[in-house]
């Protein structure tokens, strides 16, 4: 059944020349030797993303057409944030507003050119170009993105919103962005990455490398709510030092095909990590979440909860890896993936993958997939609530378990409304 993926998508991929040229060329070399994933590629076996890209694009070279979108259309109402808008991969100064009082924000390319130590210590150190063809593609071709640097002992008061909008109304668009985020000791920051798009098919890759120093706190929220034509690859690697706290939210509310890699490396003691995910899929949407919690030192906690709703012909994929290294005694690691399938044609592939080399650990994992609870539906209907509202009500309550964990009230309300509206309209 599997059409061999002709790698002509990878022809004509130009590598910009800058301070990271050597890394870029290496990545390109990896890309060609890996090839785009097929159904035989272990980490992509349920996700025929290459085939979808083949159907929709001639090449995966980054496109240069400019876009024209009013970012406000997609804004998060009332959210007081540092806002950085990118349209078709180009930083849009006019639509951005941020201050650099508490933190350093600059184009990543500039930072890498000016500060050698950043390249040496951090860049391309977490996201492995040899493990994933899309990481290699991104590393070879990225042309936009930020360095966000928070010094020690800074509580950044406002969240930072990176808003990536693709305007594919005139032509198909391919973008590649790259962010490097350094959170200093005992500092605290919340970063929101939001994706929107208009128009035709567009494909984006993003790779984020995040270093969270001792005793620091990071909230990282990914909002994928595209108008239906974005193919997207998002890879986020986070390295945590001792006593740091990380809360990740991956909210895939709309889009065409999504692949998210979220990899946490718990490289210290007393770490607290949470990964929450919510995916609401309709039509022929695909969302694949691959997560890793890698416990490298003793006495840390990781906790993961991903919930999905799949309707129509949509497809969900979840793969959750937990590694507990031999020295990581007294680890607590929990993982849960729950799915509701609303139609006969919707599918989900869920796979927990635990590799535990230490003996004194507490680990648990569970995955379920099922239909909406018929008894609960009947109960609600018997009180006069229409079947559609009852469904939406139940799904909304189900999603609420993830949404309620969002601590920023404005953001939580925004997501809450978005989810509620979508469940009432599209499910």
């Amino acid at each position, binding site marked *: 059944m599997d059409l061999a993926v002709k790698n002509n998508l990878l022809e004509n991929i130009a590598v910009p020349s800058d301070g990271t040229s050597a890394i870029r060329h290496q990545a390109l070399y990896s890309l060609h030797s890996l090839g785009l994933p097929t159904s035989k590629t272990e980490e992509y076996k349920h996700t025929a993303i290459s085939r979808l890209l083949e159907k929709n694009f001639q090449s995966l070279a980054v496109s240069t057409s400019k876009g024209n979108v009013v970012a406000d259309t997609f804004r998060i109402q009332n959210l007081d944030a540092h806002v950085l808008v990118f349209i078709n991969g180009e930083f849009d100064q006019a639509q951005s507003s941020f201050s650099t009082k508490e933190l350093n924000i600059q184009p990543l390319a500039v930072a890498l050119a000016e500060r050698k130590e950043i390249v040496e210590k951090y860049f391309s150190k977490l996201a492995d170009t040899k493990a994933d063809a899309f990481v290699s593609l991104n590393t070879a071709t990225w042309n936009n993105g930020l360095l966000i640097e928070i010094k020690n002992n800074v509580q950044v008061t406002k969240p930072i919103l990176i808003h990536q909008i693709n305007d594919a109304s005139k032509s198909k668009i391919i973008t590649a962005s790259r962010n490097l985020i350094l959170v200093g000791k005992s500092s605290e920051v919340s970063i929101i990455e939001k994706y929107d798009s208009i128009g035709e098919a567009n494909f984006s890759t993003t790779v984020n490398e995040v270093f969270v120093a001792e005793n620091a706190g990071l909230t990282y929220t990914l909002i994928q709510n595209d108008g239906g034509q974005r193919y997207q690859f998002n890879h986020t690697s986070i390295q945590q030092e001792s006593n740091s706290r990380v809360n990740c939210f991956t909210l895939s509310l709309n889009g065409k095909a999504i692949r998210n890699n979220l990899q946490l490396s718990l490289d210290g003691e007393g770490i607290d990590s949470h990964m929450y995910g919510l995916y609401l899929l309709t039509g022929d949407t695909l969302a694949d979440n691959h997560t890793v919690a890698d416990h490298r030192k003793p006495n840390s906690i990781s906790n993961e909860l991903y919930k999905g709703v799949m309707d129509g012909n949509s497809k969900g994929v979840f793969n959750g890896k937990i590694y507990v290294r031999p020295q990581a005694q007294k680890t607590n690691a929990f993982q849960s993936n729950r799915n509701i399938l609303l139609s006969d044609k919707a599918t989900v592939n869920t796979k927990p993958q635990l590799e535990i080399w230490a003996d004194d650990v507490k680990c648990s994992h569970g995955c379920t997939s099922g239909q909406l609870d018929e008894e609960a539906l*009947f*109960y609600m209907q018997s*009180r006069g*609530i229409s079947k559609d509202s009852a469904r939406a009500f*139940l799904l909304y309550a189900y999603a609420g378990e993830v949404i309620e964990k969002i601590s920023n009230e404005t953001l939580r309300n925004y997501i809450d409304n978005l989810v509620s509206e979508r469940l009432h309209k599209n499910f």
Partner: protein
Amino acid sequence: MLSIKNLQARIEEKEILKGINLEIKPGEVHAIMGPNGSGKSTLASVLAGREEFEVTSGDVNFLGKNLLEMAPEERAREGVFLAFQYPIEIPGVSTVNFMKTALNQIRVARGLQALDAVSFLQLMKEKMKLVEIDQSLLNRSLNEGFSGGEKKRNEIFQMAMLEPKLAILDETDSGLDIDALKIVANGVNKLKSKNNATIVVTHYQRLLDYIVPDFVHVLYKGRIVKSGGKELALELEAKGYDWIKEEVELA
């Protein structure tokens, strides 16, 4: 008000109701008794519109309309209410929100305006008193972690909110201590009027000391095998169900 004729229903090839006949007029209280497994809850569920059960024959007319053709929510909007034997737990949905949606959908279906937040709260406060239920309970996820008694009380609270024309109480007494039983019965009695009717499903006489029935029916193996006045309940209490079973086997 409610007229059931030769109602037969099954689930997965298993015949459960084998021809039920029952006439209920406004203002009446009917008790349906019978041993476990007779089909009492099935009858209640079929009347409320549970789709799992397949109605194979018979008619049910409610206020001049064919009840069996209606979706469960339509029945509720027409005034049917079922207090569940086993109320469902719904995590993440508070009773308050649930009732607000239910009440307003019913009101809109009847051509009335939806209640605003203030009027809704007022109504809720009033009904809470009736069944002596606490606000904090109603703010919690629907029935989640409620005790058996709290669930039953919540059912009657919902009934009070929705003011049905036909209330079907399925084993509302089970799991209640005597004080809670009195409160629940008192709530039901206060909601009674000459315009609405109540079906009380139970297999103990106890509840009927507080909600006094006009008629008592014994349901056994999917049929109503005996009907009488409230004294029939006392007789069943004294003699158990064996004599009824024997009568049925002999006939």
